[in-house]
């Protein structure tokens, strides 16, 4: 468990509470009105919300600016996602110091998708650091008040740092090796990529073995067939189950908006209730609900875990 606790999420995890986190996605816009609205809907249901950083390498509002504004205006604790795809170690350091300055308490350190997968494929990919060395850098900043070059940092920021894991990765041995590496360099918590299959999750926990780092398992209740289909086709390392996808596809034919919403909710509740029931028996410390643009599902899903 983390040596120092700075964020509310880390506090609840250290108290042994089962933690729920949500996810907010800034848009390609000059404002963060939509994620602010979603954050307000999830207040009281989740203890924190991740704010995504150019997910799938689509360039959106800066996650630093968005996380700051959402946290300020709604009171929702924001987990600032920071990826290495677009910044070298200097820019990453500046942003980590910026996060502390703006009162953010938690960073999720990510390598990030390759820019070739997104809407700006001709951009120069950076990857000066990777997720492990970014976690290491944040540890040094927070714990030692030093940057990677050993330069002193005055009044270092107080941040908890998280890392990702991909239980569904094609090569589990290599993936778990990487997760162990993140644990060795001092990650405070882990949030996983989306998992759909119970056996995939079980194999991951078995291969990883015991750890005192809390792990929040990611799920993705999709708000529409389009979202689920996009996830299946374009999100690296994730396969959406064909049955779930087929059921979601059938909702496309429903013309009445209200009935369509009800059916989408029913499919998600049915599928994820089963998964969440299973989750209770795993070493997971919580659940990361990536219900982007779909906050209404968080409450009903959370009830399953009561």
């Amino acid at each position: 468990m983390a040596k120092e606790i700075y964020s509310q999420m880390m506090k609840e995890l250290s108290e042994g509470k089962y933690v729920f986190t949500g996810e907010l996605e800034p848009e390609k816009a000059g404002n963060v009105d939509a994620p602010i609205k979603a954050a307000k809907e999830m207040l009281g249901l989740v203890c924190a919300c991740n704010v995504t950083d150019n997910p799938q390498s689509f360039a959106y509002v800066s996650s630093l600016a968005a996380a700051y504004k959402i946290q300020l205006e709604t009171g929702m604790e924001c987990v600032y996602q920071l990826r290495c795809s677009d910044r070298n170690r200097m820019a990453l350091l500046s942003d980590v110091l910026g996060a502390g300055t703006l009162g953010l308490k938690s960073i999720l350190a990510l390598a990030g998708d390759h820019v070739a997968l997104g809407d700006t494929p001709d951009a120069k990919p950076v990857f000066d650091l990777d997720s492990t060395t970014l976690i290491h850098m944040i540890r040094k900043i927070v714990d030692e008040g030093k940057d990677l070059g050993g330069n002193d940092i005055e009044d270092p920021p107080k941040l908890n740092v998280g890392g990702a894991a991909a239980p569904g990765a094609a090569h589990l041995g290599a993936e778990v090796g990487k997760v162990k590496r993140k644990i060795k360099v001092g990650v405070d918590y882990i949030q996983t990529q989306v998992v759909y299959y119970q056996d995939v999750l079980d194999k991951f926990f078995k291969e990883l073995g015991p750890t005192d780092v809390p792990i929040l398992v990611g799920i993705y209740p999709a708000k529409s067939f389009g979202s689920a289909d996009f996830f299946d086709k374009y999100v690296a390392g994730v396969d959406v189950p064909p049955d779930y996808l087929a059921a979601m596809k059938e909702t496309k034919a429903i013309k009445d908006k209200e009935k369509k919403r009800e059916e989408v909710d029913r499919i998600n509740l049915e599928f994820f209730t089963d998964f969440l029931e299973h989750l209770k028996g795993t070493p997971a410390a919580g659940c990361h609900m990536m219900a982007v643009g779909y906050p209404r599902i968080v409450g009903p899903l959370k009830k399953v875990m009561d």
Partner: protein
Amino acid sequence: MEEILGYLEGKKNIVVVGCGGCATFYHTGDKKAVAEMADKLTKEGKDVTKISMPLGMQACETEKISIFLQKKKDKVENCDAILVMSCGDGVQVITEYTDEEMGIAKNVYPANDALGLVGGGPNQLKETCQSCGMCELGKTAGICPLTACGKGLMNGPCGGVREGDKCEIDEEKDCAWVKIYKRMERLGELDDFVEMNDPHEWGKMKRPRLFELKEPMSMMDMMGSMMNLNTISGYMSMMFAKPPEQKEEKKE
């Protein structure tokens, strides 16, 4: 070709240079490629002068290219542009040589889009080293993640490994970090896999990089080495020959 014709628009007399190094090896600047390029340009109404350099005579070495440019000095002096079938090194060495040594300013255009240093063969060649100046191979089971990993991660794999251990950005390519894992497993060194590799020191790659050879190889030395192999065909057969089978020594 469209791009090349764009460069050459309004220019009549063209010198086409084919490099005798990599571009000859990969047939993107050999004698045949130069002839084909010349034909295409002639059909577009250009007057073409061909300079084909034989294998072993690289356009990127001033001493070698100078022989060929000086031999056709008149054509070079009177041309409207030089089109170079080589990597960017050849293009720029020719630019520098014509500018500074021959004292003539000409447009020098690339005909090729060079893809980088490659190895392997005989058919499939791949980039495995980017000459970064700070070799990491000793830490990564002899596979360079900076080059072989699509993201150049020093600590992988990323979360996007595809079915069949393929790369997130190209399902035709293997994930370098799964390969590193498998090699470490075979070497019995998996404990090292969970150790963090420090961030790569890019400070060794301040561009442009300059090198000074204390004892440069002279043309005479090089010709001597070639003579020892008798002929180019002898040289080639040595390159592609299978190593002689080793006979087991009988122990007495």
